[in-house]
């Protein structure tokens, strides 16, 4: 479903600020794979998701989605295949537009936006139905500007918008990190439901070890622009957060001793 080969991304190349964000990433996701991604700050997780969604174009390598090479395709054209939810609850919705207007944009995704009415009675009925699945009472507030919702409500709406028109790939970048524990749990539950209901292929970045283990069927650890650990479904169930922490320490130690060897 998703195949990355030799993905490389360097920020500010040939300058003092040069920063290799992705060294050479190879990753293959089968249809229905739900991969959790962990790794230290600056490991390149967000950059990887940006390369998949098209927000950033890779310097080298190929991105293939469902057999189609999208390496050079701009973000807005990939949107019919790739949907995402960001860490910042403000990022996934337009604050001055109403809930139904926001949803109408998700509704038009992949269809192109013509001169048809954005809001019709039929669409409204569907919006209500979909919002009701969130169980937040948003179905009765279609005309409310999204800026008046709380972070948790906005994130739930972002998630609904991302999966409204079924994408091939769903990207989640620490999408529960800005929420308090109970709302993070709510969004996690909604995420699992949405992925199962739509049989989505998904990548979820998280810093929460137990979340990384509890969700998904596969786990990937990144460090310094590379994938350093890829745990398949069978092994993932046996892992504990302590295993992951030990692995982290081992990899960081390895990186450290490499450097000391060089000195």
């Amino acid at each position, binding site marked *: 479903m998703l195949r990355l080969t030799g993905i490389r991304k360097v920020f500010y190349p040939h300058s003092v600020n040069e920063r290799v964000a992705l060294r050479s990433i190879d990753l293959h996701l089968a249809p229905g794979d739900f991969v959790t991604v962990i790794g230290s700050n600056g490991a390149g997780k967000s950059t990887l998701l940006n390369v998949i969604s098209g927000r950033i174009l890779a310097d080298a390598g190929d991105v293939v989605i469902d057999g189609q090479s999208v390496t050079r395709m701009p973000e807005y054209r990939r949107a019919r295949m790739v949907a995402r939810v960001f860490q910042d609850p403000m990022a996934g919705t337009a604050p001055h537009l109403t809930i139904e207007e926001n949803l109408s944009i998700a509704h038009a995704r992949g269809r192109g936006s013509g001169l048809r*009415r954005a809001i019709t009675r039929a669409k409204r009925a569907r919006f209500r139905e979909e919002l009701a699945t969130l169980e937040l009472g948003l179905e009765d507030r279609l005309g409310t500007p999204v800026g008046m919702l709380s972070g948790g409500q906005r994130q739930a709406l972002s998630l609904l*918008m991302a999966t409204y028109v079924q994408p091939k790939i769903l990207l989640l970048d620490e999408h529960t990190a800005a929420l308090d524990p109970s709302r993070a749990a709510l969004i996690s539950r909604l995420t699992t439901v949405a992925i199962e209901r739509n049989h989505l292929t998904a990548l979820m970045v998280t810093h929460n070890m137990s979340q990384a283990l509890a969700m998904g069927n596969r786990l990937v650890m990144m460090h310094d622009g590379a994938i350093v650990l890829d745990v398949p479904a069978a092994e993932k169930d046996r892992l504990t957060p302590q295993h992951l922490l030990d692995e982290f320490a081992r990899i960081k130690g390895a990186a450290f001793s490499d450097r000391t060897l060089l000195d």
Partner: protein
Amino acid sequence: MIIALQLGLLYAVMALGVYLTYRVLDFPDLTVDGSFTTGASVTSVLIVGGQSPLLATVAGLLAGAVAGCVTGLLHTAGRINPLLAGILTQIALYSINLRIMGKANVPLLGQTTLLSPLRDSGQLTTWVGVGVFAGVVLAVGLVTVWFLGTDMGVALRATGDNEAMASSQGVSVDRAKVLGLTISNALVGLCGALVAQFAGFADISMGIGLIVAGLASVIIGQALLSGRTVWVAVVAVVLGSIVYRGVIQIALGVGLNPNDMKLISAVLVVVALVLPRTAPLRQWRRLRASRVAVPDLTETDAPEAAAPTGEAAR
């Protein structure tokens, strides 16, 4: 006062264009000063050349559209900062407008214009004239409201509101910006065409500082009538334009001369921008916002970003 009302209504067409860029797209577009004169000069030259005034007016509208499209392409394809892209087009249009007119001023006296029937029957500066202009503004306003309610219009609004979100939801934000600038300057060109026919001439300097009048109308309108639906915003812009012309007319009435008007306009905009941010007004807005805020059913904390309308008044 009829004259202020008429000018307010006529210039409201331009102000609606400014609303589309400044407010909807969040793109401060300075093309306006040039594209207004382009609309006026194209129309005037065609009328003098014997073309039908309707055709000439449509040509003025299209000329404005082209100017807006150029600014849009400078910004999107050329990656030029919005303000600079607008200024570049505006300056270039100064030369182009002179080329179109061949001189600095094209009089329309004695020519058949769209307004000739009104002028000839002596109704131009009466309430009949006001009614006709109101009809024009109503039509333009309705089309604007209709457009902003289509999928494309909502995509445009989302682009101005949260570009990253729009792009991730499949909106080509570059195309949306070019489209918005094109439509906006089409309205500005149309306004230039109408003003030239009303005033009886096109002049190379008629657009100078016009963007400030447009901004003033949008900002005054929003200060007077803030609402979150598109049609309220559109009505507010028209209202703002009328109030603005009224204030200018009063300023002229107390003995200030037309050359002082640019200063008055700038001061008006500053006041309209700063005043809503002063403490008592903010408090009032916050009160209103909290009354309509949505209780969060999942948790207890207060909703953030509680005042989108207040935010919009900046």
